[in-house]
């Protein structure tokens, strides 16, 4: 009886750890959705801009420029809209998890969103620290 109780307690602890690990994994996955969508839409915009430039090659420089600027602007706005919407939905889900006490999932998602914020601002940070060698 005693042995059984110890095994049972160990089993329950192990299950708790596994559930917590699964919760963290799920939270991370959900938290990274906005970044994935941003990368997908933003990543598609660049080859599409090149394609627009190529398609309008014969139409003259200004038509080509308009097409490229239009595709790039729409792509950036679209990726911004998709990103904002995804963030809003993830934050709502995090709130629901917090309400239901699924703190591991909620925290993991919030960490993933924080990492996303860092990655989004990374180009600006890199530009700030990129070594430049301006002519005198």
């Amino acid at each position, binding site marked *: 009886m005693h042995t059984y109780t110890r095994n049972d307690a160990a089993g329950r602890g192990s299950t708790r750890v596994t559930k917590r690990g699964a919760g963290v994994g799920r939270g991370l996955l959900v938290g990274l959705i906005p970044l994935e969508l941003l990368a997908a839409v933003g990543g598609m915009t660049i080859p599409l801009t090149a394609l627009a*430039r190529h398609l309008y090659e014969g139409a003259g420089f200004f038509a080509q420029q308009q097409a490229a600027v239009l595709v790039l602007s729409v792509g950036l706005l679209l990726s911004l809209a998709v990103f904002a919407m995804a963030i809003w939905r993830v934050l709502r889900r995090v709130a629901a998890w917090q309400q239901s006490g699924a703190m591991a999932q909620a925290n993991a998602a919030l960490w993933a969103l924080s990492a996303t914020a860092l990655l989004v601002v990374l180009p600006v940070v890199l530009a700030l620290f990129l070594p430049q060698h301006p002519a*005198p």
Partner: protein
Amino acid sequence: MITQTSSHVGQKPPAIGRGWRRLVATFLTVSVVVTSCFSVVSLYIAIQIQVVKQTPPYATPASLGAQYRDVTFPSRDDHLQLQGWFIPGVLPTGQLTAQRVIIMVHGNGNNRAEKSSGLLKLSVDLARRGFAVLAYDSRGAGQSPPAARSFGLFEQRDVLGAVDFLRTGPLPYPALGRPRAIAGWGVSLGAATLILAAAQEPAIRAIVSDSAFADILPLLERDIPAQGHIPSLFTPGGLLAAQVLYGVDYYHTAPVAVIASIAPRPILLIQGANDNENHTDTPVTNLFTLAAAARSAPGAHVQTWLVPGATHAQAYHVEGTAYVDQLVAFYTAALGADTSAS
């Protein structure tokens, strides 16, 4: 109800979770706003550095008493129809010749008559010394079709188009025959463009580069913040945006990287000793950098001429006839004498 209450036992109060959520949301908002502003400014920079106002030539060779004919020829690869003048060389006997042709490449935001460097007058001077001249408007300049300014990357196709035209195109003076030798003269951006083109086209037998830059990147890193009155952190973004929008890779527009492959064809590098005195032009160090790179090739023939008292692209104005004499001696040594009279 009991179950609901027990589920919150041992958890952090919701207020803390809400606070963290708000903190993350704020962080995300700030990062998105900062990066969006950075992107918009970068796009603006890219458009500003690409598009230059085009002005037609202020005069023609006829205004200096020279014969000439208008020509149109396509650039190599992308076939933009470029406008130019073909000025036949005049021998001492008065006979016209097209045996040796100099392709003249103007500078940034200028045209085939470029007043600031004296290109039109120099073209006529060379023609009167027996060299035919092909002077043309680069893409996005003068009367040629609008195009992105790529600081030599795409403009080199125009020089290559000029070479193709001279070798196989419908020349305006058919009686003079095809040129026996082709050489080039370029000023400032035109000189850098000429170096890039000559590095890949052996038909260009000799080049004179007046005030070329060795690498455009340091000049852009200086000029974009200074002329745009913006912090230098936007420069890499602007250059990246130019690559996305126009396909222009400024990180690989460096004549210094290719000039060695011109050897053993002769190169004359000219620059004003007072270039860049206002810190808006090409520092004199560019001449030394280019010369060192050119001389690194086996069999290189490189001459340099640092013109005292001359600012950017002003060597011809300062030296006058001596400048023309120097060019004539250089081209004659490189291309040989004109034999059409014999």
